């Protein structure tokens, strides 16, 4: 049986320590949505993020949205591939103190050390399950850097955002790369190498 956990943001060290790979997580509270262009602005262009992300959860994605009478409405949001954002992980988890990243797909093997070192976790959300992610958003609280369009920085309030699966825990255990190693072994056998 897969253990089911409910998490409220911001996350405490105890919350994080208790999470083990494979566990199913549902999130309540605030989540920060960003991706390629947002991270490029923070880390490559060295623009200080407009909000404190310490102990918070970052969701890698770019919503479709509209604005009616100054109020934002997210039309659709879902996760994107985490590997593209890997070079920003040390900064995100280290200097900015982010506690958890939600994305999809395996990261490079060495990414698990970055999570371990910074006492943070990687949560896998089902790629393409945007209807579930969008339905979990209760409100858009704040939006910064709208010039980046879908890649602006969004602060949203979520209820029961999930299921997410713990893919890297604070011990550096890595669910997806453990499977990837078996896949590569089977590939070797199939190729006769």
């Amino acid at each position, binding site marked *: 049986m897969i253990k089911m956990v409910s998490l409220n943001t911001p996350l405490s060290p105890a919350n994080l320590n208790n999470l083990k790979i494979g566990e*199913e997580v549902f999130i309540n509270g605030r989540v920060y949505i960003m991706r390629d262009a947002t991270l490029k602005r923070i880390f490559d262009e060295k623009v200080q993020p407009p909000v404190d992300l310490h102990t918070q959860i970052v969701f890698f*994605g770019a919503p479709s949205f509209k604005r009616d009478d100054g109020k934002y409405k997210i*039309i659709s949001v879902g996760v994107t591939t985490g590997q593209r954002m890997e070079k920003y992980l040390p900064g995100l988890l280290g200097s900015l103190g982010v506690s958890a990243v939600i994305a*999809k797909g395996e990261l490079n093997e060495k990414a698990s050390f970055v999570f371990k070192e910074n006492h943070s976790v990687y949560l896998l959300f089902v790629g393409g399950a945007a209807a579930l992610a969008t339905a979990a958003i209760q409100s858009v609280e704040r939006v910064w850097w709208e010039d980046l369009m879908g890649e602006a920085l969004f602060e949203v309030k979520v209820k029961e955002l999930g299921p997410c699966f713990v893919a890297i825990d604070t011990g550096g255990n890595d669910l997806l790369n453990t499977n990837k190693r078996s896949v590569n072994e089977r590939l070797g056998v199939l190729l006769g190498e």
Partner: protein
Amino acid sequence: MEDIYSVITQTANRLYYDALRFIPEDVVGKLKSAYASEDNEHGRKILGTILKNIGTATKNDLLVCQDTGTPVFLVEVGDIQLSVYRLIESIRKGVRETTIKNSLRPNMVDPLTRKNTGDNTGKASPIVHIEVNKNLEQKVRIVAMPKGSGSENMSAVAMLTPAQGVNGVKKFVLKTVAEAGGKGCPPYIVGVGIGGNFETVTYLAKKAALRRLGSENSQPVVAELERELLGLVNQLGIGPMGVGGRVTAISLNIETAETHISSLPVAVNIQCWRGERAEAIIEPDLKVRVIR
């Protein structure tokens, strides 16, 4: 009085949006069988989540996936007079209209400056493939495929040598799928193109990915290769979203074309589980029949 070009615009507009909201029935059928056969606990839970997500999209009138894709259209025309210029411009107009009206995420950016065009059109967007299909007589068939980038980014092409042969093709397909791993949103629909030249082989792979699931290649030897390769791909154990399991691909389709005596091009177009595709036929009286 409506002319065919305004009907094409309305059809492109509608099909693009439909493909983002509704999953083709053949794809849903394959996902349901995958759910029934998956024995990895996480894999099964993920397939259950995928099916729930499809239901939530319909119930709450939401997009299935946030990736509004690269707008790709396949237009098949029968024996009919049509201006190619106006056909392409009509589809472009449809893409622009639906992007603005439905607040769809604009994805098309300049590759170097990354400046967004804001309406999903561009120098090569929408991508419109035009084919002649004489069986359509006076009709026009339009298929919209707003291709998601997560899986598109995992696609690959190889110029193999004739000496590498079928075995080389199998190895390349397996390596490409293994490399895609969980990153392109498996379970996959794997589109494989074999033959042609550098640019036709990728189009063959795209057409293979577009083909209705459950159909097979009309050449028995190719159909046999489809079954064999699907079996091999599923032995990799990538599983839904890369967590492991029996179901790595729900379909593997191959399209072939003659190639040069010294060539063996192979392309693998990875398609995520969404299998985004919406199709309609424009009848001679300009009535539009949507195919589900």
